[in-house]
């Protein structure tokens, strides 16, 4: 695929977006529900496919994520309307939602299908067209899933071309599309290189940086519960979510108890030489070895030449100081957890700050404590935009087990070089045109109630197959073409030809 051909994909998306932005709430809701249902039904198939293709993650957990990002997402937003105008009589303001238009969705290799489900449904809820740029390592499952969603959406009445996928993704194509003026907004999830490319493209971007999550167990916490939560979170999909805990920080006084609980709950603690071997296997010249991403703990142990019990779910590597040159302070995207013991709560906060500074600014952190003041102090000191409390962070910060917006794209905000601070959600993909009266006016906006500017302008999924204008509207065509032919005859011929054409066109697809 050439950049020019990819440009045509955007061009088609623009037409589709223009048609879609006229749809009303009922039509949009029908399309969203149908697409989500198709996605939900295929959750297992794509979970298996993604694991097979990428070698990353755990099928059962990917099934859960796929369901959360299809039926779960629709349940979450079922009563939210991003289509109809909204009235605020107190402010004398009427607001109309205006979709972004064409969204370029860059999808990572770690969570390919769940991310596609998520971004596609967000776009459908908000009447945007989306072009998906899958990661080359997850290309096959991504392309197939995107096509399935496109077919489901179109069958439910969405304009053709509203969901498209680049079948041969490459870096040059992605860069070309990112900077193409036909792209309205970029949704980029992935490494910091992708994020920076998105922001330097010249197009608006909702692009989020990587995470590197510290978790602190305070002495006041329910220790066994905290450890259970953390290990379950680490084991979830083998830590491929960017919200997985990276470094566990504890006060030295509870260190031995934490170690005992970790081992009891299925972690293997790799001290001394074992830890050195593991670092060597996981980091090559300081960079994370992509082979270990999303792998089972036992597989990674074997790669490192370290023997652990077969039931091991998580590898824990203790280290002394949170400094950049300590490899275990970096993001691991695998069921490997750093463990550092510190002398005081103040030192714990400092350690957590350092973990985040090394590679996860603005992302997330977690704390296990019974002390509200501790939560407040932590949140005020550590530069993250979400802090989960007494819950595993993988699913917690993603909003799957907390009140945060369920999301596969977590804003890292100004701290993390992003314009987006919250969990990406449908409202981020619409602007609102505000119609404002003087606040001093006496307008209760009652006359606006029930008014709706959106009406379908196309006949369905695509404008109909173009037929000659004398086939569908004989009265429009004049000047001799029909001279001497009776209207009844024209109508009779017209019907015959339309029937014939329909027979012909039936199998012709887009023509």
């Amino acid at each position, binding site marked *: 695929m*050439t950049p*020019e*051909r990819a440009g*045509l*994909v955007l*061009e*088609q998306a*623009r*037409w*589709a977006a*223009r*048609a879609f932005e006229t749809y009303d709430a009922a039509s949009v809701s029908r399309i969203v529900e149908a697409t989500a249902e198709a996605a939900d039904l295929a959750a297992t198939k794509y979970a298996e496919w993604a694991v097979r293709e990428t070698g990353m993650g755990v099928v059962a957990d990917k099934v859960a994520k796929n369901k959360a990002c299809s039926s779960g997402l629709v349940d979450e937003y079922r009563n939210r309307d991003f289509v109809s105008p909204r009235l605020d009589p107190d402010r004398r303001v009427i607001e109309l939602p205006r979709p972004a238009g064409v969204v370029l969705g860059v999808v990572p290799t770690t969570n390919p299908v769940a991310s596609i489900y998520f971004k596609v449904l967000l776009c459908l809820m908000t009447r945007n067209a989306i072009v998906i740029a899958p990661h080359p390592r997850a290309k096959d499952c991504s392309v197939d899933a995107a096509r399935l969603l496109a077919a489901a959406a179109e069958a439910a009445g969405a304009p*053709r*071309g509203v969901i498209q996928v680049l079948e041969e993704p490459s870096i040059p194509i992605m860069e070309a599309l990112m900077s193409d003026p*036909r792209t309205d907004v970029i949704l980029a999830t992935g490494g910091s290189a992708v994020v920076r490319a998105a922001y330097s493209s010249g197009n608006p971007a909702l692009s989020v940086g990587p995470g590197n999550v510290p978790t602190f167990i305070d002495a006041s916490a329910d220790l066994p519960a905290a450890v259970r939560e953390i290990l379950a979170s680490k084991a979830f999909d083998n830590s491929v979510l960017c919200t997985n805990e990276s470094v566990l920080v504890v006060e030295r006084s509870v260190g031995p108890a934490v170690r005992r609980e970790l081992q009891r709950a299925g972690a293997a603690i790799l001290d001394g030489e074992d830890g050195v071997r593991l670092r060597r296997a996981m980091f090559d010249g300081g960079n994370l070895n992509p082979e270990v991403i999303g792998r089972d703990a036992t597989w990674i142990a074997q790669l490192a030449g370290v023997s652990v019990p077969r039931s091991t779910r998580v590898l824990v590597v203790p280290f002394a100081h949170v400094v950049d040159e300590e490899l275990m302070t970096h993001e691991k995207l695998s069921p490997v957890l750093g463990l550092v013991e510190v002398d005081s709560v103040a030192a714990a906060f400092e350690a957590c700050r350092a973990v985040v500074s090394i590679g996860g600014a603005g992302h997330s952190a977690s704390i296990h404590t019974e002390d509200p003041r501790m939560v407040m102090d932590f949140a005020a000191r550590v530069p993250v935009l979400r802090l989960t409390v007494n819950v595993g962070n993988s699913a917690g910060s993603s909003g799957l087990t907390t009140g945060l917006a369920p999301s596969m794209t977590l804003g890292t905000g100004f701290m993390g070089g992003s314009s987006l601070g919250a969990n990406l959600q449908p409202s981020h993909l619409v602007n609102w045109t505000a119609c404002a009266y003087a606040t001093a006016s006496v307008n209760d906006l009652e006359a606006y109630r029930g008014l709706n500017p959106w009406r379908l*302008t*196309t006949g369905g999924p*695509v*404008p*109909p*197959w*173009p*037929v*000659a*204008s*004398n*086939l569908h509207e004989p009265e*429009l*065509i*004049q*000047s*001799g*073409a*029909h001279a001497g*032919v009776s209207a009844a005859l*024209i109508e009779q*011929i*017209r019907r*015959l*030809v339309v029937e*014939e*054409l329909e027979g*012909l066109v039936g199998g012709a*697809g*887009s*023509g």
Partner: protein
Amino acid sequence: MFDGNTFQSPAKSEVISDSETYWNPGKTRFWTAAGIDLVIDRREGYYLWDMGGKRLIDLHLNGGTYNLGHRNPEVMAAVIDAMGRFDMGNHHFPSMTRAALSRALIETAPNGLTRVAFGSGGGEAVDIALKSARHATQKRKIVSVVKAYHGHTGLALATGDDRFGKFFLSDRTDEFVQVPFNDLTAMETALAGGDVAAVILETIPATYGFPLPQPGYIEGVKRLCERVDALYIADEVQTGLMRTGALWAIEKHDVRPDILVTGKGLSGGMYPIAAALLSDRAGAWLDEDGFAHMSTFGGAELGCIAALKTLEITTRPEVGLMVHYVSDFFATGLAEIHADCPDWFVGIRQNGLIFGLEFNHPEGAKYVMRSLYEHGVWAIFSTLDPAVLQFKPGILLSPELCDEILGRVGIAVRACRDEAARPGRRVS
């Protein structure tokens, strides 16, 4: 002004006076008199720039030559790449590019077309088509429609409207018969003698202002041809290449042509090439005597490269879908302008992105053409029916440019309505 390494253009006034002196005084003076002082300089996408700097949106596209826009980057890249190795080639030998294009054309053609004979332009390809039909049927007579236009070469000229043939004493009424368009009875009479080699029809006659074939007309003509053993030639030079939402407009009819002629847009406006696609029967002469028709420039290899890329782009699913959207857009938008001034803008003929806009004045389209020109759009009247404007949007138009075109057309059509109504006024 162009100031290249090997060519430097003089000033615009000098270009015009040189054109009048050395090239074509009649044409040059015609445009000057019509108020269209255009010397096309830069061109890109669907835009043209006059030497004076004025920008125009091109809706003429030279009859579809620039379907994919001017200097389409992908077609350009293909030709530039090929020039590193190829030139026009030797027309006597098999060639890599010609074989590839022939295959691509046949694989995307309507069923029953099996061979390709190349020309350098549409007229030559029509001549090939007519010669093929005559050889296959061993009959001479050719039937076309009144006001037909198939090019300016020998047989093509003779089969078209006598506006051009008579002038050069090249009309041959004994062998070339014309019948009114959309009149099956007249066609039946013309074919009754059993001495007709072929009927040639543009699927929608372009130069006549795109009058649409009545439902069943094309099918009826084909049935009549079969009855008297005449071949059916579909001239798709202007109607083909996705303009109607199908690669060839004839595909929208239940008809299998014996010969299909293509030219103009086939090579994306980068290098001239045209082709006649022949059925087994029409192309039998290629087995009997492969040297019977020769053309040094026909099937030139750089043209083949340009055509291969053009065909590949044109047949992409995204492109077909865009034609659906764009034709729907203009159908709706033009109907609104029509509704606003129905006494002046009296009719819309449309099939996909082929439009004939009818105006209530025998030369109405000339007024509209000039008004459009003043408002930044270049579209041309129909030579053989100047009441009708040929309106031919490109197949890769963006929604934004469509909006702009419609806005400008709305203004221009309304602006010239009063001028045309003034008694005794004539343009040009």
